[in-house]
């Protein structure tokens, strides 16, 4: 088994009201920041999957992202492969 680490980025669907993003934009004046637009606030999940190969791991993440981490009616997600899951644990895999 190998460990793969992924990130799932969940953001509000285009066209769906994003009250948090709007509130952030509205506050930039107080921060003295100009020229920032189209702020969208979403969620990010990072997770490690143990699987035999990356396609299997990605399929698991895909399912989690669509069924658990996002709401398809109002959100979209994308999956990223990220570093961090100190890759292979081959020696342990051998022990299984």
């Amino acid at each position, binding site marked *: 088994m190998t460990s793969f680490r992924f990130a799932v980025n969940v953001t509000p669907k285009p*066209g769906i*009201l994003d009250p948090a993003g709007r509130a952030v934009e509205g506050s930039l004046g107080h921060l003295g920041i100009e020229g920032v637009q189209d702020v969208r606030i979403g969620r990010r999940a990072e997770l490690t999957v143990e699987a035999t190969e990356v396609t299997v791991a990605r399929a698991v993440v895909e399912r989690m992202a669509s069924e658990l981490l996002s709401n398809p009616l*109002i959100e979209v997600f994308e999956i990223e492969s990220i570093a961090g899951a100190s890759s292979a644990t081959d020696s342990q895999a051998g022990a299984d």
Partner: protein
Amino acid sequence: MSIIELEVEPLHRRLGVTDDELEAIRARLDGRDPNDLELAMFSVMWSEHCSYKSSKPLLRTLPIAGEGVVAGPGENAGVISIGDGLAVAFKIESHNHPSAVEPYQGAATGVGGILRDIFTMGARPIAVLDALRFGDPVDPRTRHLVDGVVRGVGGYGNCVGVPTVGGELVFDPSYGGNPLVNVMAIGLLEERRLTLAAAPGPGNLVVLFGSTTGRDGIGGASVLASATFSDDDPSKRPSVQVGDPFAEKLLIEASLELIDRGLVEGLQDLGAGGITCATSETADRAGTGILVDLDAIPRREPGLAPFEVMISESQERMCAAVLPENWEAVREVCDRWGLPVAIIGRVTDDGDIAIVQAGQEIARIPARALTSDAIVHDRVAAPPTHRRDAPAPGAPSEISDRLPERGTDPGAVLLALLGSANLSSRHSVFRQYDSTVGANTVAGPGRGAAVLRVDGTTKALVATTDGNQSVGRLDPWLGAALSVAEATRNVSITGARPLGVTNCLNYGDPTRPEAFWQLSEGVRGLADACLALGLPVTGGNVSLYNESASGAIAPTPEIGVVGLLDDIATLVGPAFVMVDDAILLIGAAGPGLVGSEYAGLAGEATEDAPPALDLAREAAIQRFVREAISRGLVASAQDISGGGFGVAIAECAMWSGLGASVRLAIGHSPAVDLFGESPSRLVLTCRPRYAAALELLARQHGLPAETIGSVGGDRLRIELTLAGATGAAEERGGWVADALEVPVRDLSHVWEHGLARALGWEG
């Protein structure tokens, strides 16, 4: 070019407009065809949700006159004067279908919508009550819906800072595919600030403020509310409305400030039907027209088609009629609260809603054609072939004891009831709500009606919601009338005088004769009960097509009642107060267990019937209890409803931590007397020396009354006696001997954990 490309069906049908309705539209346009934009506007306005096309003739039969009524049905909320120059505004509304699609946002926007109905009238919202109904709590889908809806109600109400002080959570299999999310809101206003939803004065500006307009809920009014909701047709799902409680909070403050400073001539919230509905209704009420400049409407995203702008249900928006000289001041208020604001049109004198884009007129419809002159359908009503009527009051009955109560320990039954999904404590839900913000909550959720003090006076408002689907499914007249009886009784037992009734009529597809019969019977029950109790119906909402693949919901008229207590010092609660107080039972149990929680547990006898309701007796018992409380005779007052006498007295005990010892005379059978839910009964306590006076007062009101025991100890003990039992009852023998005896601690334990266990929130 067509708004929606033509496939097989002509456009009007795809928008939910029937061929007959299209004919009727042509007739209102002097014979011409509506263009696509006009057709879209008609389709939302002639939806069931906006036009009440199936229910209007029925609603006309409701009693609406009453003492102190300042605004009744037809306005955004009912308003009743409470003295001291103050008035209370209240209304209940459904958000069933949006909540089935997206429980969090559906419930959240439901709260937002009903709050707007309240502050549109010039009232500051002071309380929310949420009446929720779901399917089997074990079903994962139900759990998902409960979780989302509860989070949504809290997410919105907590943030806007309006306390959620009451409501209901009921599980019944008929809601499995179609949950009910009904929300009631209450507001307080100075009577002279009363603001109506009209656009008077040709030449006045029409001003839109609040959030920008996007694609939210396009088709919501027409597709969602008037077509049978179906799980497996995602193409019919409109884009979901997302609520922004922060924007709503700003909208409340800005609207109340505008009203306070006299800057608006009329104010209307935007709900179903969006700008189309707000402009046509306000124009129609004032006998004016409105010319809308489509390009002036602030948008959230580019590329919106005119029809999308006109029917969008983007949340947190308001529409005002403003004198031109007040415009600058209005703009200043909105700017200060950080709300987009724009002049989107002008009031005209031609009676039309006209829409102009880039200087071109692209639609023109008489305002009344969209609202007061919308189509009305004569639906066909037919009762089902199999019915179970309630027996006439006083009719003999030997049918209701064929239940497996014999040999069963009544204490075990009581514990099972107290721990059941429907009767256990709802605290794991309402603890997710802020019930105390505003610092007026005297009694919040959990123990009978909610009580809110009216700051600056000695008065209090008392509010509750009730519905009764389990009797309603057998006898829709009785279900409705019982709901009114129970809701008003819950108010009366605090000492408060019910002021008026708001209602949300949740029913199935009105084109099915049986569903329409249920609706007509429900309205009849509502009217009969309100007349008997002398109460006006001040407003409400109708939600039809509550059906899913698994069938129609049980008819559920949800009743909201607000009452007034003149002196809060006289307030009486349901919990026992003091050791040695006398316990009195007022009223008498009637036969019939069908529809009760006990029957749900033990199984229904097929030949049994629901208990009867005597409206005159109900009125008498409420008059009696209010008088007894005002005379200072009563220490605690509890009504007998779900779970019967046993659950009622167990609640008095649990909520006080005090035990009780009573002797209950069995008139029918242990099941009926202990757990039956026949109406018009109370458990009162008083200082022992007042017991005789209370009994006498009850008899003067024509009510049976008996002192049955006293408060004290740490156990609930109910001895069952044969006194008053008929020979027939003795024959059945064997069941009278067992007394019920349970430590109060044990009662509390099962009651407190029941709901969380049923929902899997707790192991």
